[in-house]
């Protein structure tokens, strides 16, 4: 079991991580520059789940390296020593040696057992029940974005998962359409989001994932189960912050933002509320209560739009609203001139688009 204390100071530990160290040195030598890998699985600096997996990975890694060294060593020796030489003796035609064969069978079996025991230990450790005071977040996969619901806080958001540092989280995962998979490599392994299926007792089966983040920061992740045309563009970010900051974020999410009257944003708000936007999108504190698309509450505060696709700027918002399919193939959101997801084109003028973009950008304050 890995305690929280051992997990502190991720950066420092990375230097003590021989596999990471070796690969980065090799890759730097080959590629000519130092390189940072924000989605690395062998640099899980920031949580108990990732650390447990990584420690197991190291055990397995070194066993396999040992086997590889033996096999390649013997192979190399054999190829060198026993190559045919002119005039060499005819090989002795031996058919086997029971002792040797039993030897390497037992040897292989012992290594396998030595890998299996810690594996099964970690299987149970990483799938243990979350504690009573864990933060519950419902993670719902959609083609091709993430919905995050905080039932205890009564907050809904999309594509950026805010978590408190140091508090256990209890993710409850399922899908609204096809199978997706939640994966934030630096926080730990992935878990599928399956469509809801009735169990024999009448309840609906969901998946769970429990871990604690130990370091503040932004962690990149993305869908890891092929889910259709825009599977590659279903990114997510986990934003971990100290508990007080997280509480502040929750409060902000529950406080409606009113654009200044007469501003472009105010006009945008009018356009938004009168257009098909509200059929799919919700903004807390307004009449927009659609549930088919991402919740846009405090959209302006997000770092990206379109599930990690574009930087969150007013220009990008306008471009996205105008023609989302140009950025994301198969997207279910209609554009100004294209239908999408069964909805007709929005037919907004470019001024209206600008106004809506201004309104959405203003939701960050």
């Amino acid at each position, binding site marked *: 079991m890995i305690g929280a204390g051992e997990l502190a100071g991720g950066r420092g530990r990375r230097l003590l991580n021989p596999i990471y160290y070796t690969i980065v040195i090799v890759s730097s030598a080959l590629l000519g520059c130092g390189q940072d890998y924000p989605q690395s699985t062998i640099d899980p600096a920031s949580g108990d789940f990732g650390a447990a997996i990584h420690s197991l990975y190291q055990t397995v890694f070194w066993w396999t390296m040992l086997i590889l060294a033996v096999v390649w060593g013997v192979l190399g020796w054999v190829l060198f020593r026993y190559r045919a030489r002119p005039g060499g003796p005819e090989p002795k035609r031996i058919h086997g040696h029971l002792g040797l064969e039993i030897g390497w069978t037992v040897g292989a079996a012992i290594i396998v057992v030595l890998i299996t025991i810690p594996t099964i230990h970690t299987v149970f450790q990483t799938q243990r029940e979350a504690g009573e005071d864990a933060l519950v977040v419902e993670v719902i996969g959609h083609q091709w974005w993430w919905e995050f619901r905080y039932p205890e806080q009564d907050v809904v958001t999309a594509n950026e998962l805010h978590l408190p540092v140091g508090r256990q989280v209890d993710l409850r995962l399922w899908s609204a359409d096809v199978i997706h998979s939640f994966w934030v490599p630096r926080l730990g392994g992935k878990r599928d989001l399956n469509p809801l299926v009735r169990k*024999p007792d009448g*309840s609906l089966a*969901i*998946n769970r994932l429990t871990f604690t983040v130990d370091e503040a920061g932004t962690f990149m992740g993305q869908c890891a189960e092929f889910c259709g045309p825009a599977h590659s563009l279903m990114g997510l970010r986990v934003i971990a912050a100290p508990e007080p900051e997280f509480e502040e974020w929750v409060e902000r999410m529950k406080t409606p933002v009113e654009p200044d009257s007469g501003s472009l944003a105010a006009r945008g708000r009018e356009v938004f509320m009168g257009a098909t936007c509200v059929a799919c999108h919700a903004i807390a504190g307004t009449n927009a209560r659609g549930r088919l698309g991402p919740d846009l509450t405090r959209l302006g505060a997000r770092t990206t739009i379109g599930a990690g696709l574009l930087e969150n700027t007013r220009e990008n918002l306008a471009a996205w609203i105008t023609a989302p399919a140009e950025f994301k193939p198969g997207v279910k959101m209609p554009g100004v001139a294209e239908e999408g997801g069964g909805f007709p084109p929005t037919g907004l003028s470019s001024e209206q688009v600008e106004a809506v973009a201004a309104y959405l950008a203003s939701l960050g304050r």
Partner: protein
Amino acid sequence: MSAAAQDQESVVGGTGSTDEPASHPTWRFYVMIGLILTVITAAEVAVFYIPALRGVLVPILLVLSGAKFALVVMFYMHLRFDSPIFSGVFVAPLLLAVLVVVALIVLFHVLPHGMGTISGSG
């Protein structure tokens, strides 16, 4: 028709020979098996309607139908008298099939997937 098959013919189809009585059952024998099969089927249906046996219904039915299965395969399909190779090429896959059925029942009903649940209305 290969020579081998003809050889077989003389063993399986020969009449009047008594040295290997099991290898060519008479029609009476077949009828008897048929009667047993019918009786077992009747027993299965009867068991189904007896309320007192509800608790042990499943094991009883499995045993009875297993018996029927074995009777047909051993006697009507002649595995009992034929080359063990035929039994081999049938029984080995049959065991795999049973494994698949049992494994899937366990994986869906005993250890159902999904590490948690939400209420049915959700």
